[in-house]
């Protein structure tokens, strides 16, 4: 790639940090996130080389990445192991998550790939349901349905319920 397609190199350099974060939120694993984004870049490169840069390159790459993630999860069918609390304490440095954030993060791990993708795109990327639908090749209604089921799963997640029950009630 180096020296081959300079505009693609610039594209990788400019977009990698932002998209690696999205990949991390999807995979919840740093190494898997790097692999996922790398595979997505390679896939985009092949089209780029033959047809030139796609319109809305970043959106195209994100769409490729999200669909590769969903597809890989479908094929792998592995059970994710939630991050241990110690992992986060080791890596997060001074910003150790408070309990509620940690519980929510672990609860995200029980969602299906499509449900998690919807939440990440909606909440972290700030995308509309129509934009997400375009990414996932489905109808906006399906996105809303996936989001609804994701929220239901999260709200009924035992750890979240326990936390909500024990959390101090805010006074209005």
């Amino acid at each position: 790639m180096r020296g081959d397609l300079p505009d693609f190199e610039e594209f990788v350099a400019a977009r990698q940090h932002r998209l690696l974060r999205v990949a991390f939120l999807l995979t919840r694993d740093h190494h898997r996130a790097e692999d996922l984004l790398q595979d997505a870049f390679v896939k985009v490169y092949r089209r780029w080389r033959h047809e030139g840069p796609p319109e809305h390159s970043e959106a195209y790459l994100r769409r490729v990445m999200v669909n590769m993630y969903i597809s890989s999860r479908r094929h792998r069918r592995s059970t994710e192991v939630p991050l241990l609390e110690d992992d986060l304490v080791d890596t997060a440095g001074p910003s150790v998550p408070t309990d509620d954030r940690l519980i929510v993060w672990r609860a995200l791990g029980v969602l299906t790939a499509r449900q998690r993708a919807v939440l990440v795109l909606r909440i972290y990327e700030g995308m509309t349901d129509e934009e997400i639908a375009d990414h996932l090749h489905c109808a906006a209604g399906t996105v809303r349905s996936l989001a609804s089921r994701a929220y239901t799963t999260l709200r009924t997640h035992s750890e979240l319920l326990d936390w909500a029950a024990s959390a101090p009630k805010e006074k209005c």
Partner: protein
Amino acid sequence: MDTLDELLKESMELHVRQVTTVDLPGRVTRRLRRDRRLRTAAGSLAAAGSLAAAGALAAGVWGVGALRDGTARPQPAALATTGECAGLRIVIGRPNPGPSDQGIRSPLDPVALLPGDNTISMGRQDYLWLEASGPCHDRLILDGPGPVVHNGAGDVDAEGRKLPSGPFLDEGDRSTAVVFSNEVADGEGVFTIRLDAACTSKPCTPPLASVHVAVRGTATSPSDPGAVLDSTATP
């Protein structure tokens, strides 16, 4: 936005702070090179009739990396001992079926190429990996392979024909190349290692090394890394 959304957003933003910068352009580059080489190698094996090997190679099932048993890589003799390339070393061997190391292959049980003439034995439809390190490793050309043995990772021209010569692939601190013996019958061939350019018109300057290849015997399979291999410098 309700409380759960806010909590999710906070949690996501907090956790992505763990994400550190990586050399993704470098990784993508290495991956593209590996894919290209695997496709080329698979195509060559398929053309030679070794479809099972081609399929396995295309699938990348052998992986790559350091020596499988974890021992230190032997330090080969220098191919060039004087001049700007003094200390350049090239080893040749079967592709390492060991664990992946960023997609880069390395020779298994390598033998060193020596300055001047070398002789190597290969089975039919076999392939061998070359790895260069040290000064000038990124300027090497695998030149002049013929029908008996050819440059497996060589470039193709605009019409898709395989070019007889091609540069080693730069992998950073080393460069690699692969040669194939595609003959279905026994035969002999030769290729040379040159600096910067192939020999396109006679007389040519002496190459860094010439490798005479004797193709003998039953075709070997890449899944059976026990091919006859020796490298002998011929004065």
